[in-house]
């Protein structure tokens, strides 16, 4: 659909984060970021990686799980943005710009955590491009995530300029979609191609990562949308309100259900297998851990059951609660996935009578907090200065349920839902 330049002009939606609440949260998250960054840097400079609880028997711990979580949530957000921008699901336009922005900053946050985890991070900048080890999935991770970042930024700049449907914007959108698929699919293969680690070895792991990545992306999106509007749906523009009472919660429920299905089939396969490197992970590590069981029951099963009810899934409180629970549940899922692939010793007699035990150290937790707080700081700055609630003008002005908006019918438009910021 071609639109005139006038139509392409967009308008700013009021949101609470552009006011004093935004500044307050920005200062709070900035303090957390600085405190956790200072703690981590001091620990790393004084004690090096001895401040981690990882080691030669279990080299990848919580910082890698955190990076994985952020990278996949970013990919998930990128895939949601592609619904309107590539596939024409126009009811998702109201969240497209926020999705692209979140995908960008969540990935930046994840990369920051990874940078602090590596032994020699700056060496990476020349050693990876100059040596071109194309056999390594980690080489391609660098290539694809760099492209992913580039296309996300390019796409965001198009939306920031009000170009929603131009030919270039669509081409960049398609490139960004492909970049996201390649990056997160390849990230899955970093684990999935390791035949010597049978818990991970799985050709279909990219599909599992796409699915769970979109689920964590939707959880982040729902939370941040409500945060931007003070957890009050009345403040939202009608098109966004329609999405949050229509397609998005249904998609969210389906995604949580699909995630549960994936975990269930992985668990059944693992429990059935005689191979101790898979079976023991499920019996003696995952299902033996109260925290893992709690993350499954409270972080995925409970949200899924609640979201099955049409009345509950449209409630603001339920949506925010489910978003938070799924956010935490999937973080635990990533942690147990990364650690679970390493807990069974490779040989009998390696001075480990049982499974290798691992609990993250304070420094490793500080890396996780760096990721979360950096994400908040960048997000709050984005809400303040980049008009993340923007959408095509014809959608912003259409009453809720109008066919032009491409959104399903919803309640009457709320007064004062749209206002230009000064």
């Amino acid at each position, binding site marked *: 659909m071609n639109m005139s330049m006038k139509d392409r002009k967009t308008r700013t939606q009021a949101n609470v984060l552009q006011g004093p609440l935004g500044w307050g949260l920005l200062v709070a998250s900035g303090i957390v970021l600085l405190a956790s960054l200072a703690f981590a840097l001091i620990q790393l400079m004084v004690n*090096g*990686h*001895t401040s*981690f*609880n*990882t*080691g*030669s*028997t279990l*080299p*990848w711990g919580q910082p890698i799980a955190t990076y994985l979580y952020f990278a996949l949530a970013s990919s998930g957000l990128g895939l949601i943005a592609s619904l309107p921008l590539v596939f024409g699901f126009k009811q998702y336009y109201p969240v497209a710009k926020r999705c692209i922005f979140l995908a960008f900053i969540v990935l930046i946050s994840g990369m920051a955590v990874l940078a602090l985890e*590596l*032994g*020699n*991070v700056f*060496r*990476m900048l020349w*050693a*990876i491009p100059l*040596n071109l*080890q194309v*056999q*390594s*999935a*980690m*080489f391609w*991770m*660098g290539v694809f995530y760099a492209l992913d970042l580039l296309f996300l930024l390019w796409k965001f700049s198009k939306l920031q300029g009000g170009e929603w449907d131009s030919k270039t914007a669509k081409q960049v959108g398609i490139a960004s979609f492909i970049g996201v698929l390649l990056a997160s699919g390849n990230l899955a293969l*970093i684990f999935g191609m*390791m*035949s*010597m*680690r049978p818990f991970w070895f799985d050709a279909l792991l990219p599909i599992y990562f796409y699915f769970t990545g979109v689920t964590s992306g939707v959880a982040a999106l729902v939370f941040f949308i409500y945060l931007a509007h003070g957890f009050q749906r009345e403040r939202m523009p009608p098109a966004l309100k329609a999405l949050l009472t229509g397609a998005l919660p249904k998609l969210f429920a389906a995604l949580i259900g699909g995630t549960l299905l994936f975990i269930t089939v992985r668990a059944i396969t693992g429990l059935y297998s005689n*191979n*101790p*490197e898979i079976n*023991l992970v499920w019996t*003696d590590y995952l299902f033996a851990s109260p925290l893992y069981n709690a993350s499954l029951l409270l972080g995925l099963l409970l949200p899924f059951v609640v979201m099955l009810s049409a009345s509950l899934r449209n409630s603001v409180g339920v949506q925010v609660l489910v978003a938070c629970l799924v956010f935490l549940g999937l973080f635990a899922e990533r942690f147990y996935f990364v650690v679970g*692939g*390493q807990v*069974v*010793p*490779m*040989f*009998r*007699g*390696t001075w480990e*009578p*049982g*499974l290798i035990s691992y609990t993250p150290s304070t420094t490793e937790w500080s890396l996780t907090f760096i990721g979360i707080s950096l994400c908040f700081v960048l997000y709050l700055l984005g809400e303040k200065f980049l008009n993340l609630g923007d959408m095509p003008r014809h959608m912003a002005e259409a009453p809720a349920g109008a066919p032009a908006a491409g959104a399903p019918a919803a309640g009457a438009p709320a007064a004062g839902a749209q206002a230009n910021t000064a």
Partner: protein
Amino acid sequence: MAKWGMVIDLDKCTGCQACTTACSMENNTLPGESWQDVLFYHEGEYPSAQMKWLPRPCMQCENPSCVHVCPTRATYKDPDAGGIVFVDWNKCIGCKYCMIACPYGVRFYADEKPLIEPDIREAYPSENGQLWSPPYQNPDEDWQRGIGIQPPGVVSKCTFCYHKVKHAPEGVADLDEDNPEVKEYVPACVRTCAPKARYFGDLDNPESQVNQLIGDRHGVRLKDHTGNRPQVYYLGAGAGVPAFTPADREHDA
């Protein structure tokens, strides 16, 4: 160029761990950073319980998965150095992917919590960019091959004592510690082995003792199903390593 290989006769190995100690002294490794380790385990229950052990160096695989996954080519297999797998400490970014990809668990990230207290790294603090600097050091430091004491944030591993092996005369079939002409070039673990359970030689030389032992005594490679094709072969009973079982569930196995 030779293709260096090792043969370990488990029927002769007494599990004395002299190899582990010699390796540690030769290469200045930290406690827990056992490039050469002996794994002890038991199988079965009374009255047929067995005490077993398995010496485990780096297998210097012909098709090394650690090399394939390294994003910077820091870990590489050098055909001009007898097919030994090295880590270039000037290129390693410390991502530890090679440790994930090694099916034998013989790669080490020594920048970790000390295995035993007090931490010897605090007794001999770092100098010249090393992780720690003890007063005696292997003088043949070569960071491009991961020989010597590593800097922080890199992965280390067995080098088949390349700093010794590289001086071997061209075309020699075996490096036997009983041969005075080559004994200085024999890897530390092989030279120190009291029951002479270890042999080191050229796998490409049909006349070498290692090839004859592999052929005559049915040498096997650990975890051959991984396709990594180790250049380390085992002889005798015990080369078939049983699957891991937690100590408290031995009776279930």
